[in-house]
C-alpha cells in the first residue's frame, strides 16, 4: 500500500477495463441489447438448454428407432448420425477460431479472443468424439481401429492443431501477446487446412464419400436424411449452448486476471 488512492469506488475498475472506452458510455442499440440480454438472458439460456436437451433426445430416437437399418453396414451405420454432424461442427468451430482471430487482430477486443478460445476448446472436444466414434465404426466395418485414410488423417491433424492451440495458449497465459500469437497461429492453421486435405487425399482415400452431394440427388433414403438433419440441428444447438457456457467461463477467467492485477497493483 503506497500512495495513490483513487477515491470513488468503481473508478478502479473503470481504469483497468480493457480498451473499449466508447462502448460503455455511448447509449444506443448496443446498450439496449446489453440491457435486454441482462434481463432476458437467463430465460433465453434456459430455453436454449431445454431445447437442446429435447433435440438430443429426439436425435437418439430418430437415429436408433426412426431411421431404417442400413442394408450393407447393418446397425453400426447408425453411428453416422452422431459422427457426421459433429465432424461438420468441428470444422465450423475451426473456421470460427480463424474468423474470430482475424477480428481480434483488427479490433483488439478481448471478446473476440474469448470467442476464439471457446471455439477451439469445443472444437477439440467435438473432434475427439468424431475420432472415437469414427474409430469404433472403422473397427466394425473395416476391421481396424485406424486406417491412414485421407479424411481420418486430416481430422487427426485438425485435432492436433486444436490441442497445440490450447496447449500453447496455456503456456502464453492470458496476455495480450499470447492472444495475438494464438490469433496468428489460428489464422495460419486455417489457411493450411485445405492444402492439408488436398495432400492427404492424394496420398490415400478409403473413407465413404460425401453423403449429401450438393446439387445432386441424395443417395440416402428420405428417412435417413431426415434423421441426419434432425441430428444436425440438435448438435448445432448443443454446440451453441456449450459455446455460450465456455465463452462465459473465458470471460470470468479474464475478470479474475483483471482483479488479480488490481490487487497486485495496490
Amino acid at each position, binding site marked *: 500500500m503506497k*500512495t495513490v488512492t483513487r477515491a470513488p469506488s468503481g473508478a478502479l475498475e473503470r481504469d483497468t477495463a480493457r480498451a473499449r472506452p466508447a462502448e460503455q458510455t455511448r447509449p444506443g442499440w448496443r446498450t439496449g441489447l446489453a440491457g435486454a440480454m441482462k434481463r432476458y438472458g437467463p430465460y433465453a439460456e434456459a430455453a436454449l438448454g431445454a431445447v437442446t436437451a429435447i433435440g438430443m433426445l429426439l436425435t437418439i430416437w430418430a437415429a436408433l428407432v426412426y431411421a431404417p437399418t442400413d442394408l450393407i453396414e447393418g446397425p*453400426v451405420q447408425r453411428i453416422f448420425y452422431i*459422427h457426421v454432424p459433429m465432424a461438420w461442427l468441428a470444422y465450423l468451430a475451426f473456421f470460427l477460431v480463424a474468423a474470430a482471430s482475424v477480428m481480434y487482430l483488427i479490433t483488439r477486443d478481448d471478446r473476440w479472443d474469448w470467442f476464439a478460445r471457446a471455439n477451439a476448446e469445443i472444437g477439440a472436444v467435438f473432434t475427439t468424439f468424431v475420432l*472415437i466414434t469414427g474409430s*469404433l465404426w472403422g*473397427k466394425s466395418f473395416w476391421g481396424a481401429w485406424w486406417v491412414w485414410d485421407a479424411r481420418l488423417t486430416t481430422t487427426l491433424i485438425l485435432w492436433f492443431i486444436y490441442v497445440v492451440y490450447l496447449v500453447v495458449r496455456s503456456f502464453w497465459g492470458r496476455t495480450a501477446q499470447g492472444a495475438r500469437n494464438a490469433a496468428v497461429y489460428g489464422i495460419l492453421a486455417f489457411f493450411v487446412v485445405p492444402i492439408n486435405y488436398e495432400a492427404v487425399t492424394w496420398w490415400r482415400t478409403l473413407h465413404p464419400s460425401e453423403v449429401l452431394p450438393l446439387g445432386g440427388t441424395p443417395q440416402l433414403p428420405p428417412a435417413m436424411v431426415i434423421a441426419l438433419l434432425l441430428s444436425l440441428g440438435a448438435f448445432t444447438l448443443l454446440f451453441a449452448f456449450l459455446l455460450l*457456457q465456455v465463452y462465459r467461463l473465458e470471460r470470468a477467467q479474464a475478470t*479474475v486476471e483483471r482483479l488479480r492485477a488490481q490487487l497486485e497493483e495496490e
Partner: protein
Amino acid sequence: MGNMFLIASYAVLWVGLLVYIGWVALRMRGVQGEVETMRDLIAERERQAEARATKLAQSAKLTAQTASAAKTPKRQPGAPVAKAQRR
C-alpha cells in the same frame, strides 16, 4: 457384433458430453468463487483507502510549481490531490 460398437459409441458420446459439461460447470464455479473473494478483498481495501484519503486530504495541499510545497507533511495520498488542482 455391430450393435456392440453402436452402443459403445453412443455411450462414449453421452458419458463424454456429460463429463465435459460437468467439467465446465466445475471450472465455472471455481472461477466465480475466485471472483467473489477478490471483489471482497478489493472492496475492503478501497474502503480503508478512502477512509485514509478523506482524513489526510484536508491537510495535504500541494502546489507543484512552487518549491514551498516541500514543507508539506507526509504525503501518502497527496498525489491525487495535487492532480486535482492541476486540472
